[in-house]
């Protein structure tokens, strides 16, 4: 029978547990943004977790140079810069690494990937070194983290992969450029490459062409984001100036019809990152040293940032980074000594 003393004891214990929960809550639980911070000396990166007020909450050290990221629930996938061959899966609360997935022999990763809607599977852009054609590697995200298979793509150089907001339909920016790590970053098909956007229905393993528009010749389409009304924003990079124009690097696509976003002419032929949320799109260019916030394709805000690269739109604010700083709302966060912010960042859900 519960006595007053035991009841009070249980209440006290309960309050203590609640208090302890508060005390032991992982600081990264408050993270709104993850950036990539890379050591200049070693070239190794870490995923840096940042609060909405620009506070460093913690970091996950990686044994490779990181590029893009994807999130599902409390799992963060960090992809390597091409031609890296390791993908890290880490917890967003404890920052611990769950596992590191190695690329199969004869393939390397391209720096981006996406989770399926249930989070059980991770799709990763890959290069087949025998054919130089692109592929999508399909991996389990829970132990034993097996490679489930691969989906071949109809061309080389897949880059960013994003999922439709509500279903397992994926969009892939097929950059079109053949590369092989033995030749560094040399484009091996510069004068003939063709970039396009692909659709991948994972349930049917079916790949189809989503878009391929006049005016993208000489442009490698690399980065994607979904905006309002299923508008797909597409960022490219001018690779062959003989065929392409630097003004044609930013596109928006509604109902399969692509059109040039004229603000792209400000970006010096190079889009580093694209992020969308509702009607807003944030675009960065490390060549133009510029971050642009667009609404319905029109520039509404702009900031000069030395080496503008990452772009993310969180539920609270726009976040973008340059070599040495992250702008998160009205707060500026500098890099740690000997490090620089790298290509991409991610708004955490």
């Amino acid at each position: 029978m519960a006595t007053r003393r035991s009841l009070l004891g249980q209440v006290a214990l309960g309050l203590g547990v609640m208090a302890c929960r508060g005390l032991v809550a992982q600081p990264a639980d408050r993270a709104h943004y993850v950036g990539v911070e890379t050591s200049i000396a070693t070239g190794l990166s870490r995923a840096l977790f940042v609060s909405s007020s620009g506070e460093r909450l913690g970091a996950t050290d990686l044994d490779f140079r990181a590029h893009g990221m994807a999130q599902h629930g409390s799992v963060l996938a960090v992809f390597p810069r091409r031609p890296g061959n390791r993908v890290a899966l880490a917890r967003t609360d404890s920052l611990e690494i769950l596992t590191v997935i190695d690329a199969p022999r004869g393939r390397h990763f391209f720096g981006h990937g996406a989770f399926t809607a249930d989070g059980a599977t991770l799709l990763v852009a890959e290069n087949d070194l025998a054919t130089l054609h692109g592929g999508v590697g399909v991996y389990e995200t829970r132990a034993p983290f097996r490679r489930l298979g691969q989906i071949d793509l109809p061309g080389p150089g897949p880059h960013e992969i994003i999922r439709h907001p509500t279903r397992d339909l994926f969009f892939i920016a097929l950059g079109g450029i053949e590369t092989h790590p033995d030749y560094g970053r040399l484009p091996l098909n510069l004068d003939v490459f063709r970039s396009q956007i692909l659709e991948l229905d994972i349930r049917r393993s079916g790949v189809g062409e989503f878009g391929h528009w006049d005016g993208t010749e000489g442009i490698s389409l690399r980065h994607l984001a979904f905006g309002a009304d299923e508008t797909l924003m597409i960022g490219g990079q001018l690779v062959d100036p003989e065929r392409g124009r630097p003004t044609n690097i930013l596109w928006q696509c509604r109902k399969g019809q692509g059109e040039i976003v004229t603000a792209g002419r400000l970006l010096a032929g190079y889009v580093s990152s694209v992020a969308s949320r509702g009607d807003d799109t944030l675009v960065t260019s490390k060549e133009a040293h510029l971050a642009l916030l667009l609404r319905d394709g029109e520039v509404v805000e702009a900031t000069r940032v030395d080496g503008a690269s990452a772009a993310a739109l969180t539920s609270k604010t726009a976040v973008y980074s340059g070599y040495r700083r992250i702008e998160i709302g009205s707060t500026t966060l500098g890099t740690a000594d000997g490090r620089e912010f790298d290509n991409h960042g991610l708004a955490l859900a």
Partner: protein
Amino acid sequence: MRPLLALLLILPSLSFAQSRLGADDAAILQEGLAVTADAFVLPAYAAQEAAATNLRDQLDAYCTGDGDIAVVHTAFADVFLTWQRSSIVQVGPITEAEGPMRVQLWPDPKGFARRAVRTALAAEDPALVAPDGLDGRSIALTNLTALETLIYDPLPVQSYACDLATAIAAFQADLAAHLVAAWTPGSAFRGEYDTAISGNPRYPNVDTLVREFLAGAIVYVDRLRKFKLLRGLGEATGEARPERTEARRSGLGLPSIETSFRTLADFYETPFGLFDVAPDIGGSMEYYVLGETARSIADTIAIDPRPLDEIVAEDGTSASELRRFADLVLYQESFLKSGFSGSIGLTTGFTAADGD
């Protein structure tokens, strides 16, 4: 972010990123960069152009039956080694299109150059050997690795192979001439280079230009260590593979390494050049020690008369010494990546080539 009004004010007047350097410091670096261009870059490209033009002429003479293949080989060596010097410059026009591999595609583990030559010889397309016939063709065919393949195989006079070799040499001479023109004061590129301090579409500030120079030099020392030295030598005794060394047919692998070390020394020590003026703004003086170390290594390498693949095949004392030199290159890399840039208040930064 700043509102649109700010953008409208910014774009027409000052559409370039703000320098991290003070105005005086930026002016000193800009002057140092101009001296580096005039005293190091331009002479390096001019030597490359002269060597390539001479090679074209020697091949022309040989192919009409009025020359000597040994003279052609000597002329090829001049082009090859002048390129090993100018390739430390990965700024401006050389980075366009397919970049520096337009001059030398190596390593070439898939044998693209050899295959391109074989295909061209089988087809004997007269368009390829017509004036400017190689413009826009695959760099696998137009670069020095392909040319080495051609002129170190039996090269019959008055043959298609001979004409193709001459065409490649002419292509290289034109490319080098283009580089000289682009770096000559008064050219469009040079105008942007010399006015980086005020910002222009190519260089928003001096910081960007310094970063580009450093990024190219980092690639250069990285290639020196990983490819020219360790690709054939391996990391340790017993891992040597002579077939992986550079320019095996022409025997220029070791002179290439020597030239690279000497180039580093000259690049750093260009009087009143980028590195030499940096101490005036608090920059590191380490460049001088590193330059002298590189020069000393070059002098040591120059003493050994044997071809690189022979040293590598033997895998003895000389190979071990070259591996030690590879370790020393790491100091150069560290200086270029963070030591120098940090001392003048810059970061190395990531370039477009470094992006994705």
